[in-house]
């Protein structure tokens, strides 16, 4: 019998700690598949931001450096400049990348650092227990928006993929989701494209994932997927904003 599907070799056989219905595990797997596909596991260095994604090193069979909160693109810059032939990526959540780390991501992008940034946007601070994120939607309840986010009071959710796509140093910027099998298949191509383009250069490649956080959205995994479709995708459209569009 022909084997058509197996665990990517870049993914460790460790049970994941993520909550039921969380998409971090899927995103980890898609990264592992891309590294396998491009045969670059042994030259890849990951940079883990602070948040639920910090345990990247527990699951991926690669060298990893922890970064202080928000600073992953700066850490990745230092690593890539020392090892220009390696594959370097940062893995960051919405608080990490779109709040405390906005300066680092914008300037790494603007310098055209040859790194890939994987951005997991679930509209909430997950690890600290569900506070408002820069990507929380209007009306969404969080522990720091107990009456729902009001744009007049807390401002607007930031569309990072669109923002970064306007910078000349960015060669690829896309937003994907992995809440259904069809979306996983599209996301797989996009992640692969982002890593491939890092190798070819020039410029930073950026993939934003919309992701469910059922625990902090106070929903079941199924309800969370419906919320992602109904509320998140209309505000955060899934598209390739810069780079070859046939990848999605």
């Amino acid at each position, binding site marked *: 019998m022909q084997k058509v599907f197996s665990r990517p070799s870049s993914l460790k056989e460790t049970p994941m700690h993520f909550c039921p219905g969380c998409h971090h595990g899927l995103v980890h797997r898609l990264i592992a598949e891309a590294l396998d596909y491009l045969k670059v596991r*042994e030259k890849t260095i990951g*940079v883990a931001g602070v948040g639920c994604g910090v345990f990247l*090193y527990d699951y991926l069979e690669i060298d990893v450096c*922890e970064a202080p909160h928000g600073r992953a693109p*700066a*850490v990745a810059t*230092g*690593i890539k*400049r020392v090892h220009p032939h390696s594959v370097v990526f940062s893995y960051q959540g919405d608080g990490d990348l779109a709040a405390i780390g906005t300066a680092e991501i914008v300037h790494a992008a603007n310098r055209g650092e040859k790194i890939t940034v994987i951005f997991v946007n679930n509209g909430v601070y997950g690890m600290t227990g569900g506070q408002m994120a820069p990507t929380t939607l209007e009306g969404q309840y969080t522990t720091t928006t107990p009456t729902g986010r009001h744009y007049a009071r807390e401002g607007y959710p930031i569309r990072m993929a669109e923002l970064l796509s306007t910078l000349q140093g960015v060669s690829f910027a896309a937003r994907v989701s992995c809440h259904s099998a069809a979306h996983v298949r599209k996301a797989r191509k996009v992640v692969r494209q982002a890593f491939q383009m890092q190798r070819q250069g020039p410029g930073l490649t950026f993939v934003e994932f919309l992701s469910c956080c059922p625990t902090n959205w106070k929903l079941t995994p199924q309800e969370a997927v419906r919320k992602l479709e109904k509320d998140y995708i209309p505000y955060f459209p899934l598209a390739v904003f810069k780079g070859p569009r046939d990848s999605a």
Partner: protein
Amino acid sequence: MADKVLLNGNTALAYGAVAAGCRYYFGYPITPQNEISETLVRLLPELGGTFIQAESELAAINMLLGAAAAGARAMTSSSSPGISLMQEGISYLAGAELPALIVNMSRVGPGLGGIAASQGDYKQAVWGGGHGDYYTIVLAPFSVQELYDLPFTAFQMAEKYRTPALILGDAILGQMKEPVQLKQFNWEKQKTDFSLTGAAGRSPRLVKSLYLEDKEMEKHNRHLESKYNKMKEDTLIDMDLPDDAELLVVAFGSCARLVRTALDWA
């Protein structure tokens, strides 16, 4: 031995860092230390190194963290308010046990303070500076020659103990000119068995300072403590102590020059 050249302290430090094998520099402009970056931007690319003007001191110290994790001999420099911004990164460097050089050409504070010389960062420097009760190696130059010589010593100590080293200079030392002998240093490539290079033919490596299990954290801090105690053995001191001395005066940096003159007159 080459003849002496006349250099200001900041420029001498830049030459000294390169002579010590430093090939990566990340920094953000601030007075009174800009000649360091303005010299390194010319020297490093010719040697196959990298110079980046970062968007902030936060970015600079974290680029340094990345380069140190990748196994490079790397440095940053700044002055007091900028060094305050770097404290988060210095704490992470100490926690993750990465060797790196941070230069503080200190100015007067607190707050924006001023650009005049001061030794007001003494406590911040010798008591760690950031969160987590760590110590760093702190070397205090006394002359422009020492600004040239100390980067080599700092990298040697930082790599020996795998911890960040600070050079604590000041505005007077950085901007005054003195004759400097441009010595050659016998630097070796540092040991990089902890460095991130891609897990080719070996198991993956991890650079981290996060320890969520209580026992792990305690064990790590005990290990750091024993390292800090050992570091004291390498204390550098320049001492003239006559047998009949009644008074001991301790000073560092540009202030030590004044003290020495005063003692000569006494």
